[in-house]
């Protein structure tokens, strides 16, 4: 009751100074998504980079088409195509240095391949012979992550650890518009900002989470606006403009590398194919919308720009397509081979050393397989 006893003598002082820790103004995304292709900014873009992006986009599209074909042939259990989103996938991956890390979601096979991952290994998960078909350390690509947004805190932790160790490593984490609703998204971005971890969050807003359109997912001005609440800058970019995505991601990576902390980027794009080959998109969206986005195709957009500026002749186009076809043929051929599986692997990696119990179960399975080979029971 001390304060009340002071009555009469008490004069309230002004409250302890309140000031925002960060000025919100620079955190706010621009009202319009950033674009390069077809704008004046295009003139400043490096032609070599644009041509590289073009070749990668063509290869990426071909990969999507081939992988989808493989599902029809029963060679893949399922494939979530990123057709229409190749600019996000490829340009983001190319914005990283070799030593940086990529944290892809389950739809980001292309980004992983653009980082040098073997196209077949990248499909192991979806073929079903193992969960992750590659050593994540080899190309610094974390396992393709199925539970949505759960890979984001991993990216933050890895980036933070690298910084603690004094290594010059940036982590790029990819997530969908739907994934942005998960609690893990919130917690990851908050940790990243508090720790000023060198991490870049790239939301591919492709309009849908399976059948759920963005309007049922969020009421925010944009997903990039979520950045403000964490005290990191939000950036909005045309996700079908490979040059723009590359520039925005590169800027954010540089900022992170220089100790400037994390950035949230929303790339506005569209999923042209169904959610996966198993999905029927006609149940939840009309052709008009799809057609409007087809007219804003990332490959055509870049091809048009390059052609207009005389940076792409027929030979270059043919070369890009040929490379893509070679990749596709190789993919087809290798995916048509049955993977060689060892059921004993089921027990090999649960722990560093299998427990006694796992060894018993391994012996049981071995005996069963033996009996099966012998003609069985």
């Amino acid at each position, binding site marked *: 009751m001390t304060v009340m006893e002071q009555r009469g003598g008490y004069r309230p002082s002004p409250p302890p100074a309140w000031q925002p820790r960060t000025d919100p103004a620079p955190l706010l995304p621009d009202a319009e998504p950033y674009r390069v292709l077809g704008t004046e900014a295009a003139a400043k873009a490096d032609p070599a980079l644009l041509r590289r992006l073009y070749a990668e986009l063509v290869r990426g599209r071909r990969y999507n088409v081939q992988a989808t074909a493989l599902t029809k042939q029963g060679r893949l*259990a*399922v494939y979530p195509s990123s057709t229409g989103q190749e600019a996000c996938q490829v340009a983001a991956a190319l914005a990283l240095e070799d030593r940086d890390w990529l944290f892809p979601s389950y739809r980001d096979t292309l980004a992983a391949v653009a980082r040098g991952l073997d196209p077949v290994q990248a499909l192991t*998960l*979806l*073929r*079903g*012979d*193992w*969960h992750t078909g590659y050593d994540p350390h080899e190309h610094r690509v974390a396992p393709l992550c*199925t*539970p*949505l947004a759960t890979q984001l805190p991993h990216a933050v932790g890895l980036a933070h650890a690298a910084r603690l160790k004094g290594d010059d490593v940036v982590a790029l984490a990819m997530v969908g518009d*739907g*994934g942005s*609703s*998960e*609690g*893990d998204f919130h917690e990851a971005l908050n940790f990243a900002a508090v720790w000023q971890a060198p991490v870049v969050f790239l939301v591919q807003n492709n309009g849908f*989470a*399976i*059948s*759920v359109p963005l309007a*049922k*997912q*969020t009421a925010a001005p944009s997903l990039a606006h979520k950045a403000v609440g964490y005290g990191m800058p939000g950036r909005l970019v045309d996700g079908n403009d490979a040059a723009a995505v590359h520039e925005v991601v590169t800027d954010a990576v540089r900022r992170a590398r220089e100790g400037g902390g994390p950035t949230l980027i929303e790339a506005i794009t569209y999923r042209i194919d169904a959610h996966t080959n198993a999905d029927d998109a006609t*149940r*939840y969206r009309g052709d008009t919308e799809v057609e409007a986005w087809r007219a804003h195709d990332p490959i055509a957009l870049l091809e048009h720009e390059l052609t207009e500026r005389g940076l792409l002749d027929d030979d270059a186009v043919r070369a890009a397509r040929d490379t893509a076809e070679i990749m596709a043929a190789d993919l087809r051929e290798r995916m048509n081979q049955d*993977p060689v*599986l060892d*059921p004993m*692997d*089921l*027990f090999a990696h*649960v722990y560093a050393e299998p*427990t006694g*119990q*796992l060894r018993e*179960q391994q012996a049981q*399975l071995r005996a*069963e*397989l033996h009996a099966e080979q012998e003609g*069985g*029971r």
Partner: protein
Amino acid sequence: MTTVALKPATMAQALTRALRDAMAADPTVHVMGEDVGTLGGVFRVTDGLAKEFGEDRCTDTPLAEAGILGTAVGMAMYGLRPVVEMQFDAFAYPAFEQLISHVSRMRNRTRGAMPLPLTIRVPYGGGIGGVEHHSDSSEAYYMATPGLHVVTPATVADAYGLLRAAIASDDPVVFLEPKRLYWSKDSWNPEHPTDVEPIGRAVVRRPGRSATLVTYGPSVPVCLEAAEAARAEGWDLEVVDLRSLVPFDDETVCASVRRTGRAVVVHESGGFGGPGGEIAARVTERCFHHLEAPVLRVAGFDIPYPPPMLERHHLPGVDRILDAVGRLQWEAES
């Protein structure tokens, strides 16, 4: 129970029909989850509900499982009967905090003033070639959480009847739907669709004298198949379908085991720390002197669910069940 076989249907269809009938009968029933509205769910179990009852009664939520279950708790607090769909078993994990700390405890916390009549539908189990995180059998977690009912149908009729009962229950029910039985077909009686044993009762699906297979959900058809195959070995196996893991029907299970003197518990879920330990332990506590052999368990291995190409090695099949039956110390009898 006599079943007038009027109409063949898949389990998925029976579930849809149960939801529809429940919604039609009770305006407080609300279906919610990821993609349950326009799309009708990835397994199409909620197909047509949004159209028939409107999006306020069958709602596509944002993609956030804790948010789905947490808001459903609030809706139930206000007197609605939410029926929540978790898209796949493993995607229910983000909602475990809400499940354990609130769903299971709200009635107890408030001395009964605030019951939560809430149904949580969880497609579970493997055998459908799903990639990582799409084939978990997570019933051990639910069983270890007092305050939840845990129910799982193995037949088309039970799918309908148990789901109606779950929705009508004033307690939260985790309703586990065996994914690989979604397309199993069966005849049922749409005139008396709820004419099944209530939640909490196990059912003898096949009477037998030699030994009892205690099982539930996706393993019921496997056990029935094993029982057929066992005839060649001279074994007449009884198959008990638990139908509800909580409450657990000791009476039916123990009656069977006392009769046969031998038992094998069969489930897909991992063995260690899985449902089978509880079942074997309680059967043994209650039937010790009737047992000719220890209660054995045939379960999934104690490993993360395998990739599609290896899942057949993991799933308890007929051979593994018969092997276990063979180890029930038959010599002890003679």
